[in-house]
């Protein structure tokens, strides 16, 4: 990675599109906040902010988990469009295991394992049999939708959604954090995956850019033949990264089903797996970038709930529902030309001439 210079690169900042996007959003938010405070008072405003960001961070959590998983997968050279399916499977198996064991944490493990197993199929087909990675990912999505519907019927004898199951209790942070005004209320009490996700961002960034494992992963994604010639096990590394992405996607799915709702509903991932991929691209294939992008999309998704409960606009619900998807497209379109994935991403690696 480029060596960071100390100090702020003002010239680069002025040319950066995310910067101006942030400025515009900040300006709009300020205008809106000002009006709101005038109309409803400061205390109500602080409740609004807390609600907005809490919802936003919760909405963002599955995206954070899945997009960081996608970063690892793609950095090692394997495109994973099947994240949507892996999240769905994770959501379902989390509920199923929780249902049979009565323990939500076992459900979490179950969801992660199911996601990992699904990713193993993707890995096998793509790495060992050189399948077209996009097609395989789409197949996994179709398969996941069908499988979860099938199991819903055969295991729970229900259609549409399951009954309630044991869900994860919120973790409550120590008082000294919760006492911080506004921020304390946002972060103080959340479902555990939120904290896991925030921790993951830091761990993932360190691993990918400061450890030998991360260096090797990046080598596999840029130039697998070069990595092979210095003794790196390209196949093994890629399997690891793809399965990891499945585990994280599964955890993201579990966040949806066990984190708040305590049940599984058909199609509950609703395209989040794809938004996570967009977040990965938007975040330039780095964990921190993916995190920020996921936060952005999470806030957008949360916005539609907030505006309904706070009665903020008269825009029809349906258009608010479209917001995350439109924003995703705009975000991708706005970052033209500067988005280069790892060089070997999507290309199967064959060691030529062996056997």
């Amino acid at each position: 990675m480029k060596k960071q210079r100390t100090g702020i690169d003002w010239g680069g900042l002025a040319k950066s599109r995310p910067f101006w996007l942030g400025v515009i959003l900040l300006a709009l938010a300020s205008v809106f906040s000002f009006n709101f405070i005038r109309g409803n008072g400061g205390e109500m405003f602080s409740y609004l902010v807390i609600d907005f960001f809490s919802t936003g961070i919760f909405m963002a959590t599955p995206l954070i988990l899945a997009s960081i998983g996608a970063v690892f997968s793609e950095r090692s050279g394997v495109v994973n469009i099947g994240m949507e399916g892996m999240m769905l499977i994770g959501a379902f198996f989390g509920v199923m295991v929780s249902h049979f064991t009565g323990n939500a944490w076992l459900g979490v493990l179950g969801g992660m394992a199911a996601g990992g197993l699904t990713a193993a199929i993707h890995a096998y087909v793509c790495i060992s049999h050189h399948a077209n990675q996009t097609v395989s990912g789409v197949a996994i999505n179709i398969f996941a939708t069908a499988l979860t519907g099938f199991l819903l019927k055969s295991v729970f004898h229900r259609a549409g959604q399951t009954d309630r199951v044991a869900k994860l209790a919120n973790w409550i942070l120590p008082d000294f954090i919760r006492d911080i005004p506004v921020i304390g209320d946002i972060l103080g009490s959340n479902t555990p995956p939120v904290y896991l996700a925030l921790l993951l961002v830091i761990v993932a960034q360190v691993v990918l850019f400061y450890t030998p494992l991360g260096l090797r992963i990046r080598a596999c994604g840029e130039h697998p033949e070069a990595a092979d010639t210095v003794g790196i096990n390209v196949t093994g590394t890629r399997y690891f990264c793809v399965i990891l992405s499945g585990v994280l996607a599964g955890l993201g799915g579990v966040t949806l089903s066990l984190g708040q709702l305590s049940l599984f509903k058909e199609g509950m991932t609703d395209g989040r797996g794809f938004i996570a991929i967009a977040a990965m691209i938007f975040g330039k294939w780095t964990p921190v970038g993916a995190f920020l992008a996921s936060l952005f999309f999470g806030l957008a998704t949360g916005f539609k709930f907030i505006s309904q409960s706070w009665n903020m606009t008269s825009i029809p619900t349906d258009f608010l529902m479209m917001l995350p998807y439109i924003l995703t497209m705009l975000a991708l379109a706005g970052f033209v030309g500067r988005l280069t994935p790892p060089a070997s991403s999507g290309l199967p690696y064959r060691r030529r001439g062996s056997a």
Partner: protein
Amino acid sequence: MSYSAATEPNGQPILQMRGITKAFPGILANSDVDFELKKGEIHCLLGENGAGKSTLMKILYGLYKQDKGEILYKGRPLVVSGPADTLKKGIGMVHQHFMLIKPLTVAENLVLGNEPVKAGFLIDQKRAKAELLEISHNFGLAIDPDARILDISVGMQQRVEILKALHRGAEVLILDEPTAVLTPQETKELFVIMRKLIADGKSIIFISHKLKEVLEISDRVTVINHGRIIGSVETSKTTASQLANMMVGREVELVVQKSKAKPGKEAFRVENLTAENDRGLPALRGVSFDVKEGEILGICGVDGNGQTELVQCITGMRKLASGKVTLNGKDITNLPPRKCYEAGIVHVPEDRQKHGLVLDFTVAENMVLQNFNKKPFSSGINLKWDVIKSHARKLISEFDVRTPDEDTAAGSLSGGNQQKAILARELSRTPSLIIVAQPTRGLDVGAIEYIHRKLVAERDAGKAVLLVSLELDEIMALSDRIAVMYEGRIMGIMPIEEATEEKLGLMMAGSVPQASKGVM
């Protein structure tokens, strides 16, 4: 000009390959090959493209496994599980296409796979840098550890490759066509490095198809041809034509016979072209030259000095920032490819598989790549397959393209036949200017001869030919006038009579020779 090795080889074989046989579907790449490397010698493996040199070395290096035969290293059988294993045992390879990770730094590339660690799990960047500086100092190969591979020159990248091998304790180095990407001056530097390595006790296998270099640097030469060893000789006791003979198995015309050119009026002119490359850096900095009817203008230079961008700009594949391109008096600056073709340009591209052909299309479909939507090949939006196919059949027989029929996929043709097919297509469009870039890259001697003869024939028929090539021999054999490109500029243009390899070599490396300034 033949240097003798700095130290005498001590006569003990350090490496022996016996009876190596390796077959791929349809090709016997190595057939009962014996090869021996003595300690402290520079041994050259000489052969044309496709002769089997790379395969043999890849077997040695552990990337392939031989079907039959054994390898002895330091007297003991060599059994490896892969390239990294071979490297650990002391045999290192410097590949033709570098095995470097572009976005990473030199230091990171060096320690990849063997990273120094601090605090148990973090990469120790300082130690990595120190290791690199130590080893580069030991062998006199100066390099900046923090530079990213994609920012440094090709010659520097090659150094990193060499350092990588040395860092892991290689005693035998295999250099695979290392001079393909170097200027004559950088090649001389490489030879100095090689002699220093020999003096340090290393042994080197040097793979090449360039006779002059082989004669200059090696102690022994082994010639491989069509997968078989023809013979091994001591370099001091052989000549270029003897080696060429061994390489091809017959008397080879090293220079194509051609009569003196009779150039006519100016057909093509470029003035002050400037353009950027893919990374936004200037690739052309004011290029001007002209090509007359009935002559071949050869543009030579080391890869990466703007030749690729030049061809792209005059064929409409890249935008010119400024400058003018004229064909037969008509301004064709920045016209898209289709319009360039309509104006009378034909173009045999340097990468035949990437640009020249759609490999999944049939030969017939490829033959109409530029004019499938013109009469007589189509009327309106309807393709006329009978016309397309008969046209293809005609070209196939006229240009001796070896293919079962016109409905075979282009991808199943051999390299030489693919190139002939492209040439057939281009020449059949009655051009005013023929642009050929690296026309004989990767081809065997027979195909090369054929293509060279065809180009001279076109010249004799009064066409203007622009030849861009990285092979100085080819330029000097075919051109009537030669232009040298360096860093996006034309260093000089001279008629063939005035051109010598030394002059051209100097200009290719950026210095203008004292004697003559040449025609601009």
